[in-house]
């Protein structure tokens, strides 16, 4: 065998043997175009994650929509304070107490509520939440040493606190977890798009938008529409186990809001409604026998639409704010 040919053969063999191990580096390079984190070394990943813990101090009345560590320290007696937490529709809120320095015996309060409660009205309503109202409050003064990590049942939660002694306070860490089938949601934005799915669950789910909106339902699938109608569509949805209703009102509790429309038959297309109320809720009632799904879009009613509304207005019920 000529030496040049042998050299070429060896070269090819060595190259093939080396490519089994070393080209993984090249593969990582290719993947890194889509996932840049794979290019990072372990030290840099650690530094990036360590430096990304967001921290700030809390105000007496505050709202948080990001993860991080938040501290409240009273510079004077603060007797009526609350922090609202809100996430994306498909997120759950987890609150961990890192440090608490309050005087429970002196009348200080630190309570987490599973949901939002405003003027006595709760979201989700008592009808839509799995826990009774009393269990939705987690009082640190009663269970501080037992439950230092609290997870919400939906994308909203809040903390009430009252601190008498200046210098006292607390630190909490807020994290978010994924929720595969969001049920009760408060929208962060006055416009958006959402698909609510209730898969074989006997539960009621509400999507709340605390703005006057135009809501357009583009797709509704209710499982019982597979045969002949025994009732005329004009008979309404009374007696149906699965339906969607649109509610409007000035409070937070969907059970105290006014029904504006109900849909109990599947359709593909768009049904639009302008609702000039402070709070608009799309609520799906599900019997658990079917997989029900509704897709809708919404955007905020502008001032002109609010003032000149003629159709679908519920002037006698809603008093929309500007």
């Amino acid at each position: 065998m000529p030496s040049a040919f042998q050299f070429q053969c060896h070269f090819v063999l060595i190259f093939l043997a080396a490519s089994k191990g070393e080209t993984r580096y090249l593969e990582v390079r290719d993947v890194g175009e889509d996932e840049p984190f794979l290019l990072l070394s372990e030290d840099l990943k650690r530094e990036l994650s360590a430096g990304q813990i967001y921290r700030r101090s809390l105000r007496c009345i505050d709202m948080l929509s990001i993860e991080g560590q938040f501290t409240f320290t009273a510079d004077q007696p603060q007797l009526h304070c609350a922090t609202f937490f809100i996430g994306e529709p498909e997120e759950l809120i987890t609150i961990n107490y890192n440090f608490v320095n309050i005087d429970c015996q002196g009348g200080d309060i630190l309570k987490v509520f599973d949901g939002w409660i405003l003027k006595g009205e709760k979201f989700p309503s008592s009808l839509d939440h799995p826990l009774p109202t009393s269990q939705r409050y987690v009082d640190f003064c009663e269970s501080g040493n037992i439950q230092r990590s609290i997870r919400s049942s939906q994308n909203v939660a809040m903390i009430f606190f009252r601190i008498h002694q200046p210098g006292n306070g607390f630190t909490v860490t807020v994290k978010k977890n994924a929720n595969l089938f969001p049920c009760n949601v408060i929208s962060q934005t006055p416009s958006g798009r959402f698909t609510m799915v209730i898969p074989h669950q006997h539960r009621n789910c509400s999507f709340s938008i605390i703005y006057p909106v135009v809501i357009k339902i583009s797709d509704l699938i209710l499982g019982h529409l597979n045969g002949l109608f025994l009732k005329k569509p004009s008979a309404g949805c009374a007696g149906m186990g699965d339906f969607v209703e649109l509610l409007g009102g000035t409070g937070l509790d969907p059970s105290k809001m006014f029904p504006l429309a109900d849909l109990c038959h599947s359709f593909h297309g768009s049904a639009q409604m302008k609702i000039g109320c402070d709070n608009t809720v799309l609520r799906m009632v599900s019997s658990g026998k079917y997989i029900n799904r509704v897709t809708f879009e919404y955007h905020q009613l502008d001032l002109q639409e609010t003032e000149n509304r003629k159709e679908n207005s519920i002037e006698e019920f809603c008093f929309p704010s500007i």
Partner: protein
Amino acid sequence: MKIPLLVSTGILLVALLPCQECRALSKSPAAAHGALRQPDFFQQQQQQQQQQQTLPVLLRMGEEYFLRLGNLNKRPVGSFSASSSSTSHLQPEASASNFFGAAVQQLQQLPERSLGSPEEGETEGEAVEREKRSEEPPISLDLTFHLLREVLEMARAEQLAQQAHSNRKLMEIIGK
């Protein structure tokens, strides 16, 4: 025979081994220290953004809200009205914290409402204190939807600013 083999092996090793100069991910200590200082700057930026964003809150007049902790069945003793006369002395540059702080201060000047009877329970034993605490009605907050939307929009702006900061930091790392 052996020499070409060794040469080809050496060439392959040199060609395929990752070299130090090729790493785009090394970071100088000075750059790392600068990255650590960014959160403070970011928070200052955020405060400035919050100050700019709070101007609409202070300019809106005629809002009324009150905070009530305790018995929801009892009507509040009084309510706080952020009228133009009361807020006119506030500087337009005041931050949202000053706005809410002033509002809460006004609220705290109101006579403190009874929460059932916690004051009576303070002199009693710890078990009685807990019993009275559990008998208290659900705590709620009385806030208008308008103020709720204001804090919601502030939270949303904070989230967007934080996302922008994270993206900027990531691009700085990737770009090196």
